[in-house]
């Protein structure tokens, strides 16, 4: 640690005075010991920096949890004077909570199934056969993953009005599914490339057809990759606000993302606690899915970062 890294030097110096192990290091400044001290200092400084960042990130999250148990919640984070389930009880009904969540489930579940089935089917030929347009096609898919969906919502709205698909759950599912396809194809194709061809070839020689091989040989072998892609797709749809906000209108069809907005514009100014409780209900499924994903989370990112190429 040189002077160029002040955050690391200061705690390292403090540690050298305090910890008994480092006193020996001072008496006998062997290169290995000094290196160990230095590493310990870096680790301490890094941990302190990490904790500071963590606290800043934690405060808004803490608010939603604490406020949801406090019927007199304010805008500021604070320990509830009296813990209560009153907020949850107040929103525990079909109108406010269950119907929007069911709508979200139909919308995002339907669109996820649509996306994943079509993505797997599309990824198979892309992964297994050669053709001249493959590279341009793949590049187009990769580029369209970056297409800001926000920017095409006005023409989509206008088209949906003309073909009478506005306020139709089916129409919203089709669009939401299609908009997630490029990324899903990209991820699925990458995972499918990792399944060795030899296993598949033996299935072929035993007389299994393409679809049978795909279903009973390839897919089971890419199970963890598929679950990553499916969860990524579902979670991004679950949080999507703009698409259902534009394409669905009737209150009884709106998913939780949109009713949370309407709820707050109606009662939000007074009922912060209920807003927090509803936010928790609405966020819970994605949190659970990510916990389920656990260590596999990295897989999607190695691909996203272009690290695997």
């Amino acid at each position, binding site marked *: 640690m040189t002077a160029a890294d002040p955050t690391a030097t200061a705690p390292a110096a403090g540690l050298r005075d305090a910890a008994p192990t480092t006193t020996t290091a001072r008496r006998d400044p062997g290169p290995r010991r000094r290196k160990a001290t230095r590493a310990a200092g870096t680790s301490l400084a890094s*941990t302190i920096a990490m904790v500071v960042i963590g606290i800043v990130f934690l405060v808004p999250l803490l608010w939603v949890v604490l406020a949801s148990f406090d019927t007199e919640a304010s805008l500021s984070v604070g320990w509830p004077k009296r813990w209560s389930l009153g907020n949850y009880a107040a929103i525990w009904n079909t109108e406010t909570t269950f119907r929007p969540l069911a709508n979200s489930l139909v919308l995002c579940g339907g669109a996820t199934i649509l996306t994943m089935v079509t993505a797997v089917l599309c990824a198979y030929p892309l992964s297994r056969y050669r053709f001249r347009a493959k590279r341009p096609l793949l590049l187009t898919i990769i580029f369209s993953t970056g297409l800001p969906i926000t920017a095409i919502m*006005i023409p989509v709205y206008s088209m949906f009005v003309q073909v009478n698909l506005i306020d139709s759950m089916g129409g919203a599912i089709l669009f939401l599914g299609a908009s997630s396809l490029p990324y899903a194809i990209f991820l699925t194709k990458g995972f499918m490339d990792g399944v060795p061809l030899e296993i598949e070839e033996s299935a072929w020689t035993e007389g299994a057809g393409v679809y049978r091989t795909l279903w009973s040989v390839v897919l089971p072998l890419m199970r963890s990759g598929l679950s990553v892609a499916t969860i990524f797709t579902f979670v991004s749809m679950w*949080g999507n606000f703009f698409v259902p906000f534009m394409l669905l209108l009737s209150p009884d069809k709106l998913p939780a993302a949109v009713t949370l907005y309407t709820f707050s514009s109606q009662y939000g100014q007074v009922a912060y606690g209920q807003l927090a409780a509803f936010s928790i209900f609405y966020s819970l499924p994605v949190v659970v899915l990510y916990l389920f994903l656990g260590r596999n989370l990295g897989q999607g990112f190695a691909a996203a970062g272009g690290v695997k190429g």
Partner: protein
Amino acid sequence: MTTATPTTTAGAQVPTPRRRSRLGDRLTAVRAVPMLPAGILLVVFMLGPILYSLYLAFTDSAIRGEGASDTSFVGFTNFTDAFTDADFWNSVVLTLVFTLISAVIGQNVLGMLLALLMERANRLMTFTVTSIVIAAWILPEVVAGYLLYTFFADGGSLNTLLTSVGLPGQDLLFSAPIIAVSFANIWRGAAFSMLVYSAALSSVPGDVYESAALDGAGPVRRFVSVTIPLLRPAIATNLMLTTLQTLSVFGLIFIMTGGGPARQSQTLPLYMYEQAFSYGQLGYGTAVALLLLLIGALASVAYLRLLPEEDKR
């Protein structure tokens, strides 16, 4: 991503007695059938709207009034209207400020810092803090919007914390709303960059650092001349992805400030929405959307130039 990897071709050429396996072979019409459903969906719901927007942007299409019943072609009027509208330029500047502060600087630097800290800090703390940062990222956009609204609001958590340590309170949602929403976007997006960079860092072999250290390079020097060049592809890709995501952020700002007060946080997506739906000018809104796409395309081209030569092909 390569067209025909050597293994694929070799696998196809393995001489088997009953050679029914044609994997790695050429694509025929029959073999392309599974691609059809995805192809149709993409053409109808993605390519369709893009092409339609190229038409819509040159018309006076509207929700009500003249353009609604009888849409007519108006040439470049929508674009010249945009270029002469002060509110449009206000939105362009705010969009660039928002993207620069929150994506290019905020998310990338904080994400890289967290990824570097992850490698050095105490295991348990690393796990706890990264979990918190990831939690901020996976929360739905609308929820994130509310949480950050309460954080920055007049009687919100930030002011409680500031006054408790004797500092004056802030009023960012009114005095500098674009800064407040930029911080909100950093809070929400830092995890993405952190995960991308930590995946990239873990692929850097450790002995590279050791030899750099033996040559007398300090930590800053090692970061600048070893880590950054090695991570260049990841940095360029991540900059591109976060920029494109940030350019199209709508819900977060819509919930926190609604673009206000007095358009002080009205980025292009919110301006576009206001023009198209509050004022009913679909044609004009689409023209603005195309300009937003153009900004995204220009940014992507710029980042692609950052990629090392061998990664471009």
